[in-house]
């Protein structure tokens, strides 16, 4: 990596010179200027080949020559800590493009779920993550692949960043087109009844649905608000007991933060100094109740009292990543639990039955979309720094669209689950012969007692 040329530009902290903040050309940069961005400023740009650096910013078409750029991060208020996360971070081109791709896939996957829901291909519970993408992607980028994650029902994105293909996620949500059975000469057509209840190739075999998806060291998708938090504590206890160096990221919403069991978990986690990051994804609302109407203090990062905390701009992926790095190092080193509040926003209603407009104004949603959108902000960072050019952006968006479109097709055409599955997976080693579920004979659909 050649750190020639531009490095010196940053030493004079160009950010302090407001009149120079609008520089757009390499010449301006060379003169000691940086680029003003909506969220976070570029501090320095490092190019692969100094000979081509003249083309760097002026000609975005050659931006692939920019390998790294350093950005200033959003401020992170701290609680019971001497110092907080880094204030600057380097983003590589590879990471930047990768994050952008993940964000695009998640946004499009959730949009697809919404569309499928409206056409009744999906029904039941369905909670979308749009607006919160930077939280999941930023956090995953700063933890190890064997670290654990547990979250609530707003879990599609977490499932995806844990390596489950979009097709498997949408299949879990999607409906069989036709289900016909004949039992005792009676014909059953369940095509209507079973609409929107998952497919066999869904990541939970169609049995979990929207709220219950799992993966490697990913403990799901949990439907009872706050109930996953003690589980996260237990996972961390297991890691500590086995001394395996793993940590557990335990997520919950601002509404869940008021549940009693969250506080019980804080206490035990601190008492035993467990390797756990508590993460409050504060999107402003628990269903239709705003944080102000539900919480005595909305400074969620301080609500662990004796547990150190940081409040993090959850709309800026780099800030999330650096804060997570800090929190992961902290707890992995044996210092006990740490609490992160990610301030974020959800664009859709709470679930598909909530239009999301009765307790907040359309203006509010629009203004967040315009000023804080995590995808837009990353795109600007990539373009303005030259880490990517518009061709890169277009290509990624196209790829993401193709990936999601293909997944929608798979989800809609997947095989129906077999009726037998109803009785499986209740006990270990369940199988159809001699199944052990009391009171069930699936063939005559009749209590056998």
């Amino acid at each position, binding site marked *: 990596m050649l750190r020639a040329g531009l490095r010196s530009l940053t030493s004079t902290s160009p950010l302090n010179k407001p009149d120079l903040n609008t520089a757009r050309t390499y010449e301006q940069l060379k003169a000691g200027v940086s680029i003003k961005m909506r969220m976070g400023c570029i501090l320095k740009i490092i190019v692969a080949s100094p000979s081509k650096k003249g083309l760097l910013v002026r000609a975005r078409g050659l931006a692939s020559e920019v390998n790294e750029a350093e950005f200033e991060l959003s401020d992170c208020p701290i609680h019971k800590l001497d110092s907080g996360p880094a204030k600057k971070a380097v983003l590589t081109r590879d990471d930047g493009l990768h994050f952008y791709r993940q964000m695009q896939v998640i946004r499009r996957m959730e949009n697809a779920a919404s569309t499928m829901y409206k056409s009744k291909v999906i029904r039941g519970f369905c909670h979308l993550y749009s607006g919160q993408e930077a939280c999941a992607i930023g956090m995953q980028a700063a933890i190890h692949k064997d670290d654990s994650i547990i979250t609530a029902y707003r879990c599609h994105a977490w499932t995806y960043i844990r390596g489950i293909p979009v097709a498997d996620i949408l299949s879990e949500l999607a409906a069989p087109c036709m289900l016909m059975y004949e039992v005792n000469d009676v014909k059953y057509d*369940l095509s209507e009844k079973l609409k929107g209840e998952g497919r066999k190739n869904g990541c939970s075999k169609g049995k979990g649905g929207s709220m219950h998806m799992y993966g490697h060291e990913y403990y799901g998708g949990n439907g009872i608000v706050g109930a996953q938090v003690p589980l996260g504590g237990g996972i961390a206890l297991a890691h500590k007991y086995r001394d395996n160096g793993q940590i557990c990221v335990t997520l919950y919403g601002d509404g869940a933060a008021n549940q009693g069991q969250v506080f019980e978990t804080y206490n035990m986690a601190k008492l035993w100094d467990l390797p756990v990051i508590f993460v409050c994804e504060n999107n402003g609302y628990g269903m239709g109740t705003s944080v102000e109407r539900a919480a005595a203090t909305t400074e969620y990062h301080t609500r662990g009292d004796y547990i150190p905390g940081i409040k993090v701009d959850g709309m800026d992926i780099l800030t999330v990543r650096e804060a997570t790095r800090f929190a992961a190092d902290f707890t992995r080193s044996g210092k006990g639990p740490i609490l992160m509040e990610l301030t974020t926003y959800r664009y859709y209603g709470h679930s598909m039955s909530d239009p999301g407009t009765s307790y907040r104004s359309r203006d509010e949603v629009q203004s967040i979309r315009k000023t804080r959108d995590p995808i837009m902000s990353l795109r600007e960072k990539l373009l303005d720094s030259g880490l990517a050019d518009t061709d890169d952006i277009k290509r990624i968006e196209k790829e993401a669209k193709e990936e999601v479109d293909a997944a929608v097709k798979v989800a809609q055409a997947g095989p129906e689950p077999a009726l037998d599955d109803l009785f499986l997976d209740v006990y270990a080693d369940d199988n159809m012969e001699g199944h052990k579920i009391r009171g069930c004979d699936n063939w005559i*659909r009749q*209590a056998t007692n």
Partner: protein
Amino acid sequence: MEGETQKMNLFQSLTNAMDIILDSDPTAGKDRVFNTPLSEQGIVGFGIGMAAAGATAIAEIQFADYIYPAFDQLVNEASTFRYRSGDLFNCGSLTVRAPCGAVGHGALYHSQSVVIPRGPIQAKGLFLSSVRDRNPTVFLEPKILYRQAVEEVPVSDYEIPLSEAEILEQGSDVTLVGWGTQVHVLREVCKMAKEELGVSCELIDLQTIIPWDEETIIKSVLKTGRLLIAHEAPLTAGFAAEISSTIQENCFLSLEAPIQRVCGWDTPFPHIFEPFYLPDKWRCFEALKKIISY
């Protein structure tokens, strides 16, 4: 019930009942109806405390599925308060409301007084009785009937007594017992039995699960000699087991066939297989045939 009526669905009739309760206290104000934080244990605990201190408290749990965090408060605190204080304290003016039953998710459990209406008229009358009853009551409201069931509901104040089952159809061959949504399923089974088999069923809505109206069921089974109980909750330790055992003790010599329970399976409530899990009319009808051909 006499007097003026109005078209209401189940949730409107409950709102109407709560308006009557609120109007009956002249200190009524907007501040008496409010959102709580997401803290079920706290919601019920506060309700018990308020009621013990003399206020009338109506605590709402969004869905019965979410009542479990508050279970300790209900079972150990609310239901034993009077007993363990030798009647110095009680929380009889507490009513806990919770929409319940299948329509995506289902759950049923038992604790102290548990009431389930089958429609708007019963909902209002039973609810007013529950609030005024001197024992804490858990009032379960079938979610699926919230908008579906519409009836002409009397606008005036009226009560339907707790712990009294209602015989909806007189019959001589088989007794069918259900509550909540299941009553509507059994009504269809009654019709099918009459039309297809010429069998006469006596249909009973239990209405209050605890303490339940043993007498009405016993009398009916002494007459018919056959009993079918259906509920959405799982078979094992479901309330049908309790009824079945009591009837076996009291009607042993009158029974013509083993009691049939048609219930949810002993599996978790399966997302994808809800229609198979539920004790629908076909499953109930199969069980009925079994009883009469025994």
